[in-house]
């Protein structure tokens, strides 16, 4: 199938290696990630400890999937990820859906998301010729909306009562953001960014 990443691919930026997580990457260092409200909201799950065994089971769900990837963001020379991207591909339409979170709070606001995102989109737009990326964002996730809008993304739809909160059954809206590859290339170096903090 055209437009799929080659086996064993990894993406490199100035400070990070971004590559598919494997079972061996499960670590006690990630156990607290799903206790964090940002990650909980993003994954529509309930706050709980994410045991190493559960991590292995979750990571295994991506084994052998050619159109769905769980990508860890690893600072160079470190073996523990600081966050992840979930990338779902529709190669026939050259379309990708991206979910992202930084599990390690101390990296938030450091510019890590922006640097890793640029590397991801360089790879999919410029190397694999994807034409469009989408991201689903909760209306109350202002930080992510700010990041996307500053990067040239547009709100394409507001899906009313689209998600069912797993803990309460309450229904929530969802915003669909989209960016075309050509627009991204124009905006790649123009977006305003927060001053980068010193890396943790």
């Amino acid at each position: 199938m055209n437009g799929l990443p080659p086996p064993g691919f990894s993406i490199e930026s100035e400070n990070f290696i971004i590559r598919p997580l494997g079972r061996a990457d499960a670590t006690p260092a990630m156990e607290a990630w799903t206790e964090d409200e940002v990650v909980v909201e993003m994954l529509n799950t309930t706050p709980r400890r994410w045991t190493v065994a559960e991590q292995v089971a979750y990571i295994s769900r991506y084994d052998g999937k050619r159109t769905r990837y769980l990508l860890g963001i690893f600072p160079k020379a470190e073996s523990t990820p600081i966050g992840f991207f979930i990338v779902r591909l529709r190669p026939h339409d050259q379309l990708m859906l991206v979910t992202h979170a930084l599990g390690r709070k101390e990296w938030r606001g450091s510019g890590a998301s922006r640097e890793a995102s640029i590397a991801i989109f360089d790879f999919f737009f410029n190397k694999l010729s994807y034409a469009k990326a989408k991201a689903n964002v909760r209306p109350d996730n202002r930080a992510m909306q700010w990041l996307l809008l500053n990067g040239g993304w547009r709100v394409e739809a507001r899906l009313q009562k689209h998600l069912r909160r797993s803990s309460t059954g309450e229904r929530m809206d969802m915003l669909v953001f989209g960016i075309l590859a050509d627009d991204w290339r124009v905006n790649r170096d123009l977006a305003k960014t927060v001053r980068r903090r010193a890396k943790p």
Partner: protein
Amino acid sequence: MSQTKELQTKRFSLRPITPDMVSDNWIRWTGDPVLMSQMNARVVKLSRADLQRYVVAVWKSKRMIIGIYARTGADHIGIYEVAVDPRNANITLDALVDQQRYVLPNVLAETDPVLLRFFAGDQRIEKAIAQVVETNAPLISHYEATGWVKEGVLRQEVHAASGNRRLDVVQFGRILASEQPERT
């Protein structure tokens, strides 16, 4: 929807399609340039075996394929394809009607409410979604006229089946609380 359930309206019946129910009409639709252009599908007249394999694949992928039939004569006049998202209690609908012989809004205005009531009631689905490619003007007009909320336009979302361009997709949503039969 089980593969045996049947729903009825005044003029039509809705029945899950099994491989043995692939009709000559459906085979003809796959070669209809107007219909396929609206659906953004390539005009390739498929064989009965092709469509039977397709039906098997749809049911295996936990989607449903439901035929629309005239109650008198059992003529096959259209298809719903339904994808279920149980986690969020959503369904996504796609619809095709033989427009050489039937007027799409006249058919769907009668069949949509029955289908949505079924999902809201028996299946406890809370929201219906339709994503319609910009070339399918009759279906877009139908949803606009029947109370669906236009939730947005997904820019250049899909490749055009013919030509080197991309097409927008119009996203509609409908909360099904009002479709549920009253519970006692």
